[in-house]
């Protein structure tokens, strides 16, 4: 059993879990919109998705409020955003590689 009595641990764990659920929810919404764009989302699916995602939104907000983890969730997401930004920046900008090489060479 995981002992989550300590406030800190609980905040951290719950924050992480909720952040992950939020990311999955975002991915579902993104996917739903992509399917709308390609005309592959049926009316029935649209109705079900709309309802399910709204309920998820409400549930997440309730949990955040009840346990006061809104900040923890945000910091997890911000941290992830920064990592992703950095990785993408490096991947799509080969200039960064050169810059990095150059700065290394200068140091050497």
């Amino acid at each position, binding site marked *: 059993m995981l002992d989550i009595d300590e406030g800190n641990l609980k905040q951290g764990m719950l924050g992480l879990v909720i952040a992950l659920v*939020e990311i999955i929810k975002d991915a579902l919404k993104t996917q739903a*919109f992509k399917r*709308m*764009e390609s005309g592959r989302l049926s009316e029935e699916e649209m109705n079900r998705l709309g*309802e399910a995602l709204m309920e998820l939104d409400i549930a997440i907000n309730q949990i955040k409020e009840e346990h006061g983890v809104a900040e923890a969730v945000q910091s997890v997401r911000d941290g992830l955003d920064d990592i992703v930004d950095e990785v993408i920046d490096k991947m799509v900008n080969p200039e960064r590689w050169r810059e990095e090489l150059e700065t290394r060479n200068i140091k050497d």
Partner: protein
Amino acid sequence: MRLEISRTRAPTLPSPCEGEGWGGGEILLAEQGVYLPQAHGQNAWHIGKLCLTSERLFFLQSRRVIFNTPLTLITEVAIESKRFTVVRKMAMAISYRDPRRSGLAKAWFITPSLGRWLEQLHQIVSEQGPLPRQRGMGAREQRSSGAAEISPAPQPPSTSAPTPPITQAQMERLATALDLRSREILWHLWLKRHATINELAELIAAPTHMDVLFRIRQSINPVAEEMLGRPILIFEESRFDRETGEVVSFSWWLNGGAALATEGREARIEVFNETHEINVIVELPGVEEEAIRVRVQREKAAVWLEGAEARYLEEVPLPAPVDVNRVVTRFKNGILIVNLKKISDGKEDK
């Protein structure tokens, strides 16, 4: 309750707007989309259907009306960049008078063909004329500020059949008949699809916008009308860019767009790896179904076009081996879906 759609202009009308309590009226537009109310956080987008009738604009979620305003209370229609989940998208921002809150409220919507909505709602709001209420930065005022000092030639409403895309051969013919700077404008739009007057002025180092407009009206378009029977450059206040999914405002476009299947232009292809099947989705706007050829091998799929001018080939590796005898293709609205069944481990063992 079922409603018949009375106008054929509507872009996509998969089914009428079935919902309760929206008040009736002739349906002008209906499309799946997302809605963000003002009071909520950045990411509380609702998924459902946006409907426009001759009287009101409303949004249905699970057949329930969760946004509803009479058109007469809309004060402004604008385009804003909003965060939608993890990306930024262009959204239609509707400002309206909310009688319940006795003040101005705002709502955002994103739909696949946002350009149509903006066009229609702009028209409705401007037709309402000067209303006895404060307009703030109204749609019309914004329009004039965005279009700079120069008003381009009025464009006829685009209700006719879609203009055929321009091929590279046609472009080359046109270019030879034009001077150097006009040519630059033409090729710039060929590559970029659209450009603002500012961009074009910078491109040819024109001292004023008037120079560019003069060039378009006196040189480029007359030559194109002679050769193609229609002007090649058109100005659009707001138009949906199919390639990027953005709504582009106040820009010049190639009339009909650049034909696909020319070098340097890529169609979008996506491979969706599901549990038992693989879907390959290729965007082929403006392509005739008869011209499409698909070849599937165990671990790769190829799509190409056959025809006089269009030769385009896209080959993708597949994430898993597929059964080449069970290939289903569908082509609708410029989107090709190739459905492939994976060879399951069980079957292979037998």
